[in-house]
């Protein structure tokens, strides 16, 4: 089922009057069939069905804007020259 808000091009907060008006505008735009427009309007005028249409809008999850992470670590020097390759010479 197509999103009735999208068909009528109205926001989620639209009231009854706006829905009726949007219905007429949608018919003029002729982007959707008359039946689709009628079904969309009917759905939004029925509160229980409108709530079903609202379900399809993703829930907004409240999150904080993230800040750059304060780096408390520093680079360390790696000295491979300190290693004695012959430390475990087994032919001695």
């Amino acid at each position: 089922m197509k999103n009735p808000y999208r068909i009528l091009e109205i926001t989620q907060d639209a009231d009854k009057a706006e829905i009726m008006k949007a219905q007429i505008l949608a018919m003029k735009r002729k982007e959707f069939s008359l039946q689709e427009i009628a079904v969309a309007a009917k759905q939004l005028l029925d509160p229980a069905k409108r709530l079903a249409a609202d379900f399809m809008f993703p829930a907004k999850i409240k999150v904080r804007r993230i800040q750059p992470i304060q780096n408390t670590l520093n680079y360390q020097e790696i000295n491979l020259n300190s290693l004695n390759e012959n430390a475990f010479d087994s032919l001695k």
Partner: protein
Amino acid sequence: MEVIIVLVIIAVVGYFIYQSLPNTKFEKAQNLFNAQNYNDAIDILNAIFEKHVDAPAKLAECKLKLGQQSSGKSEKIKYFNEVTALRKKISNSASVTKFESIEAIALFEIAKIQYEEAKGDIDKLNQNIKFIDTANKKGSETDFASLKKNHFYYLADSHFKKATEKEKSDKLSEAIQQYNTAKDYAEKSDNKAIQYNSVARITICQLKRNDKINLNNVSEIGNSDKNFQRELYYRYAIQLLKNKEFSEAEKIITSHLNFQSSEIDKLNEILRAEKNNNAVKRVEEINTSIEKLYRNSLSTEELKALYESLDTTANEVKVFDEQLSERISAIKPTLFNRLLTHYISAEQYGNAITIIHKFPKFWESPELLKNLGICCYGYTAKGLLTERNYQIVISGWLTSVFSDKVILKSLDDTTWDDNYTFSLAEAIGSNYSQHDEIPDNVNYDEISETNISIGATQKELLQQFEAIIHKEIQDSNLSKLVNDFYDKEKEAIEKIIEVIETDIFFATPYFAKSNGINNEIIEELDNDYHNYSNENALEAGVPYIKNSNSSVVYQYFLANDLIDRVITAINNENLVALKSLNTKDNKQWIEKFDNISSSVEDKIFNAIANKISEDDENEKLISLMEECFSFSSQNEKLKHQYSNYVANYCISKVNDEEIDNFKALSLMKRAYLRSPNNPRIVKNFITLIRFNLLDILNDRSRNMNDIYSILDWVKNNMSQTYKQNSSELSKARREILKQIKQAGVDISLFDDNSITSILSGTSLNSQGIKMKKVLTYLKELGNEQESENPLDRLRKLRQQLNLGNDDLPF
């Protein structure tokens, strides 16, 4: 006298001629050989060397023995060489053939002496190998092969020593060459120590040369000298660190260098420093990505990669700075939200579903669960369901819509609904006023124009989804899978919501099991059963079983499963399986639950009825049915079904002469035992008793004893219905007696109570005795004895003895 002299001369000459014959001499030499007198034997054999075909070989053998007996090496070799030198003197090819095996032994003895002298000397060992390779080995092949292998063993040893010298002098390529040679010889001679050590040393030399190595031969290195291993892995770890292969170096250090040493400590310090530097670098990269994110220049792929790498980075950093690690983890929800929003707006529902599922305990967030529902709907509407993903999508959708909290969440983001209130009275996600906390504009009051039903909204959503899966899946197999699964999942969640009164999270079985929350649901259902003995709670829990073996729900499932197995055994006519299920424990399982014990008879009855409808003359069913009685304590229906089936079977088979009367009687006895008051069973059973007695009478049965045995049992087990219907047997008896009487036979002979019978019973022939027994059984089983009172019997007796009414018989 002259004659005697001539004869003596002839005899002496003849003796000497005989003694000088080659065979005689060879025989003599053989005797000397046997007596170990080799030198005298040699003298004789030398004399007949070319005259007797076996002489060269025997001569060689004598010299071989002398050589073997000698103590000094040079003397031994002298004799063995004399043996081999004989070959040149032999002209007869037959003699050569016999000689060769002795020659081979002599050559082997020479090679053995030379081998003892060559140990440790590569050149001499190689020379002796050449000697062995070119020697005649006839008959001594195994000895030569073994000796040659010994050479390889010492060659391996020698080459390994040589290689170590080269290695010590830093002539690494030459050392590797020598180690390879040592390894080859070691492999040929099973010299495992040198073989493994060579592999280890070759690798060490390669590491010293800084060659790139791969440890394909780890198992051989693992068997080498421990010190070699230590040196090898230490050098290898350094090489890996130098090549910046830190994770590989860490693996080597952890698995092969886990001992205390300051040198190993240094390696670990380098690793730690590397990890620290890597962490610093990762944090810098994260910060760069955050900057790009807020400049909107971070691509979705980069965002996804950043999000997915956060856990690993946080873990890596945790070792150095726990707080820094927490700061990294803290940005995860924001990145997750960004990514999810992007996926949903781009209608990439599959990716959205995947990341939601990876979010820990996502179902505890109504927002995430709602978004999961939207994604599952969108995914299905786009026709993306397949056999691999339909379960996760459908269970996600249903769990989302059945959550009242998710629907309530939808009320948060709009203002159009400010004039309305919403009622949970008909909500599908709860059965009672069970939600602990509800918003101000939500209640449990009656539905009205201004008090909107949340249940109606949920049902509307379900209908919209059902319209898609019913109509828009083109593949018929997939459509069936999807719709069946949807129905089962929906039914299951509806059942648990109906039973459970507490405010817990409700999920469909698949969702609950895949996210590990099924046990919480089962626990609630168990509680409900404990509190109210509500077996519907257990029934509702069955689809949620995964690993909750200790729950009552599981026990209920097992009892149900047991019945299913019984039905399967009936369907497959598998008597063995049915018998194995028929145990005391299993019966206790069934009896434990009323729902199951009360329905088991009907279930078995229906399964058997189906089998009968397939084939109503199947004898196998009789045993199967008998086995089924004990699964149910209430089994009257089963007994009735069984008895009628047996009766029908016997009637049909006897009429068609496919079974004899005795078999039918045996089967009917089993039916009578279960249904002793079923008139149809009883009447047919009595008829079969009559048939069988008549068969005995007419010599048509070979089961006389078995028949009487059954009939004796009947005498003690006459039911009321039997007694009421047994006149058929009395009638048969009277008919027989009538026929006998018409034939002019005194029928009193066949009456147990008649004095004639008592007095002349022994005079009946075998046929008469048989007839009398049949008549007696007909009488007793016909229940006739009770129809005749004792006074009648006495009167009859008086008549037979011609006594007056007042006279006593005796």
